[in-house]
């Protein structure tokens, strides 16, 4: 386990229940050791050799969430000095001066330490060579490691802004400043507010290599130099403090611990320990190895520590119980979701008279190829239904869910008046880019940069020269020609040239058509291939109210489901020179009498086939139409009422499997019983078996779920299931009873559901 790696835990209990056991063990070194023997410890690193130094070396401490344990520095600074001790003899002396200089939390701590002294414990006696203490959230402690925000190996990168987290925590004030410069508690609160993610923090710390004597003396005299050891030249601080564990509690009930709590370590896959009989014995007698972390102090002492969650779930039985509870919760969630969604689907074909409903979502997207003569383009459409087709809302007997049938009978419609956009030239197929257009640099199809400057300068100088030289010279003609060129579209501006890209008219017009196919569509040859048709007429509106027909076209709505993008090629009638002139000046010279003759005229004049010979037309542009088609048949399974057909099918499958499982469990149990009680007692029960047995005892039935939610976990009685918050079926052979009950309830609910559907 990497000590710098945070681990995340999801909390089920209140955080107050967190209790950690911190075990700190000195492996080598220590203050006394180094003082007496200098560097003698180097050669003998084994535990046996150092045994005389290791008498107090194992330190255990239980720490609760946000429990303040004083460290050597706090004791030294806040503990009463010798003069204050004299005051303490008379207990009624007010100590207002002490609290006036420090912040809120400090006065609390001071008070606590004074109280301890009055109770007869000298806090200074608690200072030991190795201590485990805590910094809680209100202390505003910032570990030094977060103040070194070097993210790379580069030495030059000293900008702390590269580490936002370090910056954020570094802005939190450390209240414990040496010279009594204590910031206001309001500042501490403010810094908490500034945290990016709201969390509460707690540090479990170790203070090792404490120089107990000098700390005691210094604190009695309140000489800061002797507490902290003065500058590094004198010998550095009198102790070394190390963050053992950082615990953060986020507002979403996630707990982050760095490093993670100690666990029983799994065997290394590549380098396993020898499973000799001795190692197994050791394991049996002393338990498996737990994760430990190690650190080295500047003085060279080596310490090892482990942090264990005292309330961790250790027994396999309780793990199983948690698993079962979890399964139950999951089942309840699934059931709740199923209930919430309900069983309904409105607007289905209910009778066999309707082969299918044809739902088509149509969008008139855009038009192109129509040129740009300064007018507005618009499209009108008309729906032409062949014989026998009708709107889906006209079909009787369809369940529309008690609402008024949606009236979307858009037989005709018109889009808005659109001015064109000039899109970039479309890419060729091989040069296709992600967005469908090329990234052609602007210089290729526009005039820009030096060329346009040269163009403009030439124009300017010719005009100047023409004015100066007078009429005799025809140089102004050159300028005039340039002007004409500019007006014609070869403009020196950076705009896209209108001649180079096609104008596109965007419509984005939605329309939905829901139709019902004729009953005999599969049998009657007349209507077999018939499909509703959309007829389009594109016109343009110019100044002085001139309307000019720009194109006609039609599209048959596909009857195969899918998504279609159709480019309707359009044509326009062409008349003689007179009607062309009339069209140009007045507009509306020709139009079709009947829009249906775009496809098939309603009146063919008695002809047996369609002939449009003699009708002169001209291709114009194309219209892009997107159609989504869905066919909706009557559901195949007619045994059920159909309202919750799909759902009940899957449910039945699910239930049959549950029955299977239960019967299997029962046969398993019978087999186990037949094998004989003695045999069963000696063989260990596998977790899976045990779980299945428990499952058998606590039968879940989804019919109970609804009642259970309202009951709010009323405790079920009975034996070992007393801890379970949900109802337990009486154990034994009652599963069949429960199943019968469930079936009865299901039937009742189905009836109820049908009633609700028809309402």
């Amino acid at each position: 386990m990497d000590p710098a790696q945070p681990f995340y835990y999801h909390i089920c209990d209140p955080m107050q229940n967190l209790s950690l056991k911190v075990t700190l063990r000195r492996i080598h070194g220590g203050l006394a050791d180094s003082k007496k023997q200098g560097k003698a410890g180097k050669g003998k690193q084994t535990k046996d050799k150092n045994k005389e130094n290791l008498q107090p070396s194992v330190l255990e401490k239980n720490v609760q969430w946000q429990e303040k344990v004083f460290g050597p520095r706090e004791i030294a600074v806040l503990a009463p000095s010798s003069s204050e001790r004299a005051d303490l003899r008379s207990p009624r002396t007010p100590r207002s001066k002490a609290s006036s200089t420090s912040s809120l939390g400090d006065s609390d701590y001071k008070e606590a330490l004074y109280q301890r002294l009055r109770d007869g414990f000298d806090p200074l006696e608690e200072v030991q060579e190795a201590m485990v203490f805590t910094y809680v959230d209100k202390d505003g402690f910032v570990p030094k490691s977060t103040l070194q925000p070097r993210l790379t190996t580069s030495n030059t990168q000293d900008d702390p802004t590269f580490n936002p987290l370090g910056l954020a925590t570094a802005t939190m004030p450390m209240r414990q400043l040496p010279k009594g410069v204590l910031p206001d508690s309001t500042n501490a609160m403010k810094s908490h507010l500034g945290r990016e993610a709201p969390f509460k923090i707690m540090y479990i710390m170790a203070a090792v290599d404490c120089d107990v004597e000098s700390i005691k003396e210094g604190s009695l005299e309140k000489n800061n130099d002797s507490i902290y050891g003065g500058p590094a030249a004198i010998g550095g601080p009198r102790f070394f403090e190390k963050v053992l564990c950082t615990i953060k509690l986020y507002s979403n009930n996630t707990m982050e611990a760095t490093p993670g709590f100690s666990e029983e370590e799994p065997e290394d896959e590549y380098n396993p320990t020898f499973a000799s009989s001795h190692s197994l014995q050791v394991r049996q007698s002393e338990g498996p190895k737990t994760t430990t972390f190690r650190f080295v102090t500047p003085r060279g002492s080596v310490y090892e520590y482990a942090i264990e969650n005292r309330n961790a779930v250790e027994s396999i039985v309780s793990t199983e119980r948690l698993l079962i509870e979890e399964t139950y919760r999951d089942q309840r969630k699934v059931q709740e979701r199923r209930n919430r969604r309900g069983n309904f689907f409105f607007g289905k074909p209910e009778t066999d008279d309707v082969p299918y409903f044809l739902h088509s979502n149509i969008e008139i997207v855009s038009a192109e190829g129509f040129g740009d003569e300064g007018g507005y383009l618009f499209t009108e459409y008309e729906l032409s239904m062949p014989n026998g087709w009708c709107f889906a809302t006209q079909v009787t007997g369809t369940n529309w869910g008690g609402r008024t049938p949606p009236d979307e009978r858009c037989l005709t419609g018109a889009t808005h008046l659109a001015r064109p956009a000039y899109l970039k030239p479309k890419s060729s197929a091989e040069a296709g880019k992600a967005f469908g257009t090329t990234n052609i640099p602007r210089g290729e199809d526009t005039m820009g940069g030096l060329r346009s400057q040269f163009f403009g300068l030439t124009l300017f100088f010719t005009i100047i020269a023409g004015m100066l030289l007078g009429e005799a010279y025809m140089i102004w003609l050159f300028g005039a020609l340039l002007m004409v060129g500019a007006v014609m579209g070869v403009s020196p501006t950076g705009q896209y040239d209108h001649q180079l890209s096609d104008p596109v008219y965007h419509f984005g017009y939605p329309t939905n058509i829901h139709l019902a196919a004729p009953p005999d569509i599969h049998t009657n040859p007349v209507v077999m291939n018939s499909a509703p048709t959309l007829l389009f007429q594109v016109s343009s509106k110019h100044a002085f109210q001139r309307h000019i027909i720009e194109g006609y076209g039609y599209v048959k709505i596909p009857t195969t489901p899918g998504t279609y993008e159709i480019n309707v090629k359009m044509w326009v009638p062409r008349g003689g020179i007179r009607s062309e002139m009339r069209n140009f000046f007045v507009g509306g010279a020709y139009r079709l009498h009947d829009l249906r003759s775009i496809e098939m005229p309603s009146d063919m004049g008695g002809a047996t086939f369609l002939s449009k010979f003699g009708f002169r037309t001209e291709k114009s542009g194309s219209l892009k139409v997107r159609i989504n088609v869905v066919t909706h048949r009557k559901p195949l399974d007619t045994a059920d009422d159909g309202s919750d057909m799909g759902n009940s099918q899957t449910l039945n499958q699910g239930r049959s499997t549950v029955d299977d499982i239960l019967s299997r469990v029962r046969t398993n149990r019978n087999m186990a019983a037949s094998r004989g009680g003695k045999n069963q007692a000696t063989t260990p029960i596998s977790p899976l078996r045990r779980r299945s047995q428990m499952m058998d005892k606590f039968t879940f039935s989804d019919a109970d779920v609804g009642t259970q939610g309202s009951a709010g976990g009323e405790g079920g009685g009975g034996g070992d299931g007393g801890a379970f918050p949900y109802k337990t079926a009486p154990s034994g052979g009652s599963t069949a009873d429960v199943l019968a009950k469930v079936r009865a309830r299901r039937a009742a609910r189905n009836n109820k559901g049908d009633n609700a559907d028809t309402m």
Partner: protein
Amino acid sequence: MAELHLLGTILGCSDFKEPSGLFCKWKIATGESYDWQTLGGEVSGCTQVDALGGEGTDGVWDHPIDSHFVIPSMIGWPRMRVEVWSRDSGGSNTLCGYGFCNIPTSPGLHDIDIATWVPCGGIHERLCSFFLGMKPHLKDPSIVAHTRPGESRFGLKCESSGVVYLQIEVITSNLEAQGVCC
């Protein structure tokens, strides 16, 4: 119960006349007759402001879409409505385009170009919009994706603007059981 899951991306846009600062507000609008319950995900949102660019260049948003619906009926299938705005350096927002597309009914991955348009108004408003940057808006933007019977857009003078690129993956479940073939 039939469900519809939409996973997609608003890839970006191209061909808008506004030089920079384009962003897109989107909404997946469903039919009004039935309650299309959302099981998860967002049905509307706003992309970031694509500050770079130049006239006619592509803007990139890469904005994710992930919505999960219950299908109550085949009527009112969701539609995607986009509004493209441009934000200039002074912080004022200008409308650049309305657009819509039907969400495809067939399952699978679809690439859709949404053609957008913007109301342009008369000569007076066009002058105003040129100098002051205020373009006429739709009073009710929901008509972009819904046409009610009897309503016609004829008379609404608009200018075509750029194209928004949408990539969407449609997943349906349990529709076959209801007899729907899509």
